C-alpha cells in the first residue's frame, strides 16, 4: 500500500513539479480560456448579425444577396469538421502568417465556427417571438431596426439563453483540438507532458477535472443570467 502511494507521489512530482512542468499546464489553461473567451465574443457578434439578416429576409423577402452569403456560411461551417476548418485556416489561408500569430488564427477559427451555430440559435429565438410584438413596436412609430433592437432581440436572446449556454460549453471543450495547429491549450499541454514523462494518469485526469470545473462554473453563471432575465416572468 505504502509502495503504491509512493508511486503515485512520484508520478505527481514527475507530472507537475519536475522541469517545472506545471508552467506548461498554466500556459495551456490560459490559452484555453483566452481562445474560448474571444471566440464566444466573435461568435455572438457574427451570430447576431447573421441571425438578424436571415430573419429579416424570411420576413420581408429583401436582402437576397446578404441572405445567400449567410446561408452559405452556415452551411459550410456546419458541414465540415471543426478540426479540419482549423487546419484550413492555419495551413492554407494563413499559411504565410508568422507562427507567433497562431493564437489569433485559433480565435478566428473557433469564433467563425461558433458564429454559425449561434446564428441558428438566434434565428430560432427571434422567430419564437409573437409577430404582435413587431406590430406593436411599428405601430408606435418605431422603425424596424429600433423595434428589433429594443423589443425583439432582448426577448429572443432571453429565450435562446439555454441553447446559447449549451453552445458556449461545446465551444469551450471544442478548443481542445487547438493543439492540431500547434497551440498549447490545456489538452495539448497534458499531451506534451504525457509524452515526456510516459505517465498518462495525472496529466489527463488533472486536465479533465479542470475542464469539468470550468464547465460547471460556466453553467452556474448561465443559470444566474437566466434567473436574472426571468424577473419579468410572473414571480
Amino acid at each position, binding site marked *: 500500500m505504502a509502495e503504491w502511494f509512493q508511486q503515485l507521489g512520484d508520478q505527481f512530482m514527475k507530472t507537475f513539479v519536475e522541469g517545472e512542468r506545471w508552467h506548461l499546464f498554466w500556459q495551456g489553461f490560459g490559452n484555453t480560456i483566452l481562445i474560448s473567451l474571444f471566440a464566444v465574443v466573435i461568435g455572438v457578434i457574427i451570430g447576431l448579425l447573421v441571425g438578424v439578416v436571415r430573419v429579416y429576409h424570411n420576413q420581408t423577402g429583401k436582402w437576397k444577396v446578404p441572405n445567400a452569403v449567410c446561408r452559405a456560411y452556415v452551411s459550410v461551417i456546419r458541414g465540415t469538421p471543426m478540426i479540419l476548418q482549423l487546419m484550413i485556416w492555419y495551413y492554407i489561408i494563413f499559411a504565410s502568417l508568422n507562427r507567433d500569430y497562431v493564437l489569433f488564427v485559433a480565435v478566428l477559427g473557433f469564433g467563425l465556427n461558433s458564429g454559425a451555430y449561434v446564428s441558428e440559435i438566434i434565428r430560432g429565438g427571434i422567430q419564437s417571438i*409573437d409577430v*404582435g*410584438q413587431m*406590430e*406593436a*413596436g*411599428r*405601430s*408606435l*412609430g*418605431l*422603425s424596424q431596426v*429600433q423595434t428589433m433592437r*429594443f*423589443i425583439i432581440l*432582448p*426577448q429572443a436572446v*432571453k429565450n435562446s439563453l439555454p441553447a446559447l449556454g449549451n453552445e458556449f460549453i461545446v465551444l469551450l471543450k471544442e478548443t481542445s483540438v487547438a493543439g492540431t495547429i500547434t497551440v498549447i491549450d490545456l489538452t495539448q499541454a497534458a499531451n506534451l507532458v504525457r509524452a515526456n514523462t510516459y505517465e498518462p494518469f495525472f496529466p489527463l485526469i488533472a486536465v479533465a477535472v479542470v475542464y469539468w470545473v470550468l464547465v460547471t462554473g460556466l453553467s452556474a453563471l448561465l443559470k444566474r443570467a437566466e434567473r436574472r*432575465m426571468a*424577473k*419579468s*416572468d*410572473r*414571480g
Partner: protein
Amino acid sequence: MIEVKELHKSFGTNDVLNGITERIEQGEKIAIIGPSGSGKSTFLRCLNLLERPTSGEIWVDGEKITDPKCNIDKVRQKMGMVFQHFNLFPHLTILDNITLAPIQLKLMSKEEAQNKAYELLERIGLRDKADTYPAMLSGGQKQRIAIIRALAMNPEVMLFDEPTSALDPEMVGEVLDLIKELADEGMTMVIVTHEMGFAKEVATRVMFVDEGVIKEQNTPNEFFESPQNPRLKEFLSKVL
C-alpha cells in the same frame, strides 16, 4: 383626416378587401362590425399600413401614405393602435412600455416621458403598477396600459382592433369605459368591435363590412333600428 380610395387587399389568391372608398373626418368615432373573415380587421390594419394594400390609395392629413416614398414611421406616430392581444412588451416594466417610443423617437426627454406616463397611469388608477411587468397584470389592466401606451404619443387618431375580444367578460367594462372617456374628449377613433351596445352608444357612425366591402353604414340609431342590407339584417338578428 383619413381618406381611402378603392382599397384592395389580397393574401395570395384570397381577396380580403374588394374596393373600399371612404372618408373619416376629425372627431368621428367609427365602429366597424361584421362577421369574422369579412375583412374588417384587415381594413383597420391597412389604415396605418400594418398591412400593405394590394392596390388603392390611403391619405392621412393630406399625405399619401401608400406612396413608397412616404415615411410611414412618422405617420404612425400620430396614429395610435390597440390590439386584440394587447401586445405589451413583456420584458419591459409598465413604465418602460409607455415611455420607450416617446424617448427613442426623441419626442420627449426621459423625464417628460415619465411624467406623462405617471399622469396617464394615475388617470386609469394604475400608478402603483409602474414598476411591475405585464405578466403580473390582469387582461383588463394590460389592455388599459396598451391604450395609454398609445396615448403617450399624443396621437390624432386611435385605431382599436377588437380591443375587448380577448378579455374575460368581467373585464370588458373597464376597457370600454376608458375608450368611451377618450371618445367623449373628442378623440378621433376607428374601432373594430363585436360589442354592439358599445358601438351604438359611442360611435357617431357604424359600418357593416362583409365580403371585403362596406355593405352599409349609418348613424348608430338608424343602423341598428332599420338596417336595409339583407346580410346586415341576418347578421344583427344573430348577434343582438
